[in-house]
């Protein structure tokens, strides 16, 4: 039973509210997932600690080529941010594809990560960007790669009754770098992805310096197509190499069959198409040429 709703003004206050709750207090930001889970009895909380009024957490900043998103930054803020569109377009596209306008106006990007759904759009893009979460707990502050936050389907390694992700940060893309997002969906809003793919590439002299390729839902969390990334590292930018990488990505994917969102076989057949399209688009944005 929910008994209190607290609105702290500092991260320290928020932490102390959580501590005072002794496991019954829980962090809330946008609440678009949490409130449904509370209503359905999937989660319980006696106290909700609202992070959205803590100064600074609503901001998207760029400092020393590092982009930082506060815990209260919404999907629409990210989708509409010039900075994100220019220096991390994969995230802008991913954030734009979540839910509906109303949900994007409320739901936070950090919440999308902490809720730990396998194909959370923003999280998939953040993993491709090499994003790291700033996690604050009574014992101090630590930095954990977003990729390492998953403990299983719908399970985060984080404990929202004692820890707070205050920010997520990742390097702004440089001129020779590009990103892209591909999503297979049954309609243009209010639809979970059948597949989503985020890629970031870095080019030099029309060769791949490196590539990060992330795909979902093909595992418990966003899955790095490491074999595909290895194929591209140091390779020429060419359709052949991109197609080889796409095939390798497929070999590393393990999607499930869903009666609602497509069979495993179908997803496996379409996945390389999305990887190829994403790589082609990212290469173009990085100034490359297939």
């Amino acid at each position: 039973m929910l008994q209190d709703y607290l609105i702290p003004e500092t991260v320290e206050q928020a932490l102390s509210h959580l501590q005072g709750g002794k496991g019954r207090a829980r962090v809330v930001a946008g609440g678009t997932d949490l409130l449904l889970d509370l209503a359905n009895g999937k989660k319980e909380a006696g106290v909700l600690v609202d992070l959205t009024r803590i100064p600074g957490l609503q901001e998207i900043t760029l400092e020393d080529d590092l982009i930082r998103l506060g815990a209260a930054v919404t999907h629409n803020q990210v989708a509409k941010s010039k900075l994100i569109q220019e220096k991390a377009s994969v995230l802008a596209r991913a954030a734009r594809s979540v839910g509906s306008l109303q949900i994007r106006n409320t739901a936070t990007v950090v919440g999308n990560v902490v809720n730990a759904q396998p194909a959370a759009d923003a999280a998939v893009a953040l993993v491709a960007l090499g994003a790291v979460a700033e996690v604050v707990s009574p014992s101090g502050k630590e930095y954990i790669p977003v990729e390492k936050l998953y403990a299983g389907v719908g399970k985060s390694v984080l404990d929202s009754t004692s820890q707070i992700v205050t920010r997520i940060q990742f390097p702004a893309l440089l001129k020779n770098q590009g990103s892209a997002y591909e999503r297979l969906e049954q309609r243009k809003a209010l639809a979970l992805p059948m597949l989503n793919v985020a890629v970031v590439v870095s080019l030099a002299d029309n060769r791949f310096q490196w590539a990060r390729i992330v795909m979902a839902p093909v595992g418990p969390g966003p899955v790095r197509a490491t074999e595909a990334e290895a194929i591209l590292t140091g390779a020429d930018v060419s359709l052949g190499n991109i197609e080889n990488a796409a095939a390798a990505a497929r070999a590393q994917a393990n999607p499930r069959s869903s009666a609602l969102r497509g069979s495993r076989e179908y997803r496996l057949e379409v996945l390389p198409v999305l990887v190829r399209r994403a790589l082609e688009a990212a290469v173009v944005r990085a100034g490359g040429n297939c």
Partner: protein
Amino acid sequence: MKNYNVVGQSVRRLDAAEKATGTAVFSSDFTLPGMLYGKVLRSPYAHARIVSIDTTEAEKLPGVKAVVTYKNTPREIFNTSATMTFTVPALKPVLDQYIFDSVVRYVGDEVAAVAAVSEKLAEEALKLIKVEYEELPAVFDPLEAMKPEAPDIHANCKEGKNIIGEIIKIPMGDVEKGFKECDLVIEKRFKLPIVKQVQMETQAAVAQVEVNGKITVWSTTQTPHPTRMILAKIFGVPNSKIRVLNPPYVGGGFGVRIGLSAKAEPIAVALAMQAGKPVRVIYSREEDFMASDTRHGGYVTVKLGAKKDGTFHALDLKAALNGGAYCSFSTETPGVLGAMGLAVYRIPNQSYYGHSVYTNVTPAGAMRGFGNPQAMFPIESVVDMMAEELGMDPLELRLKNIMRAGDPWCLPYPCQSTGLAECIERGAKSIGWERRGSLNQPGAKKLRGIGVGVGTHVSNSWPFCVDYDNAIVTVQQDGSIHLASGVPDIGTGTSTALPQLAAEVLGVGLEEVSLTFGDTLSTPFDIGSHASRTLYAAGTAVVAAAEDAKRQILEYAADFLKVSPERLEIKDSLIYITGRELGEDCAGTGVCKTGEERISVTLQELAYHAHLRNKQFIGVGRIVPENAPPWHAHFAEVEVDTETGQVKVIRVAAAHDVGKAINPVIVEGQIEGGVLQGVGYAVSEEIVHDAKGRPLHNSLHKYLLPTAEDIPEIDAIIVEASDPSGPFGAKGVGETGLVPTAGAIANAVYNATGVRFYEIPMTEEKVFRALSAAKNSTC
């Protein structure tokens, strides 16, 4: 063309301000003092016998005021749909439902209900009801259900295993001989999905039972008067002691509540009787999905024969529809499927054989188009195939064969108008038909295509069903107009368009007219809002009532102005002598000198003059509508992503012959909404069941309605081939937007890819598989 003052104008809807500001009242937000909240316990099994049911624990829970099951509610058999009130003799309606029964026949079937002081308590009480079930064998597919080994779902099937009611047979000419005379015959079977209306407001009812036995029910029904008749039969109460009304708005319908709102009304009444307090029952969205009528899925076979020159010569149409667990409209739907399917083209030899079949899924009933979309996706696909076989342009082939006014057809009323040729011509121009065939570059992975689909429909249900209307126009003592019509406004603009008709006939401004509607106590009997009939049929009664009132006004005015009534006309509430100059008269100035010669009089002055002499003008309209065919041609442009199988509908040009658009913006809204439902029908919407008969698509999240972001560009084109039978020439438009859409889209997908789909929806995976198979077979 005649010029009108109010008719044909896109006046702002009279309910716009209320709805835009959120003050309009719907059943789901209607409350009464002391009202209780009803909740329903539903079957988890597709087919089971209730061995025992124990409600004692639920009854003991503090705050619970009533618990009802099959043991303590009327055992009067009925049909939730209005078919039980309007089936034309000698046909008899199929009655196969009780409020609660000792056998459950689909997942979601009603087992018990509780009324409590809060929704939460009612839900808790449901969990305390102990039910022991004995599972029975279940069947979900109509063809499976007709096999001898299938379980009998009801005992009353006379025409064959699990066949609901009568088999519909429509013969015309000699098909067997006809096919022998054809140069080319194509026969194909199509599979159709179960889809849902997904009207905005879920099923809801609030019932109040007074100590003197009078019952009042506020509900979401599309047909308050027939619903009153059904409730009267279930509860054994005279019609006159029951009042059914909308409060006054209804959040959509699309056919889902022609008759009862699923079982919201009888359950609310049963609980209110037991509790002695008003009870509100609102279905959750999940309940609405699983326990209120769907569209019929099933199988339709088209066999079309043509001569070498493209003349259609024989058509044989067959349908086996999935009726679900109870009849509802399962006898009428296959009838409309056949009748409309045979009515589009001029073919001398035709036959139809169709029926519904009981299965253990949610009952299927009325949904916008009522069998017609199920006919036209298959027929328009086969017509396209025929054009290809003949090497003819699909438009040319259609123009050669479509019905013309006066042609013989299978329907029991004449075809008095058709603007279909003009619809085809204007739609083709809008879509750019000539671009067809040059839309794609060689090697492209995303392929564009353009397709067409045409059709017709009805403007009410006569003579297939009982169908009549009454209206009363009362001129108030100040000259303003009160109109009473028993039809509801389910969001289609009835409460604006009917006053427009009255205002036009009476020669008054729209602001002078007010309307009472959707209430059995304060309006005369009307069948209600279904079958694209509201404007056409109820409108005809409104016109008749207004003409009656006008006749009385002019007769009285003739005495007043000392001329014969034939010389009088009314405009802007001023009654004047035709041919006499206006302007010199004192009317309207309020300062008429005694004895001054009058050449005009305001309705206001005249009505009050009459009032002071003990007279009021009251017009009555009592009509049985004729019927008239609306016509339509849809053109769709699609883009198929051949690497993922996704079909994107880019643009739809939807040309509709509506006879006369009384309010063009409302007509366009009807067309656009229908087109969008048709897009969903073609590419994304379906309710699929698991092996136990549980529906997988039972929420707005899972059921894939197109969203605002999926809407293609829609060009709604109004064609006006005036029909002599309709008010100001109008015909029905409520359902037509949905009828030809899936066929047009499927034909466009074929045009893009060369792959023909015999099953909808054309979802990503289905299209991907078909394209892969086609590629493998050609390599």
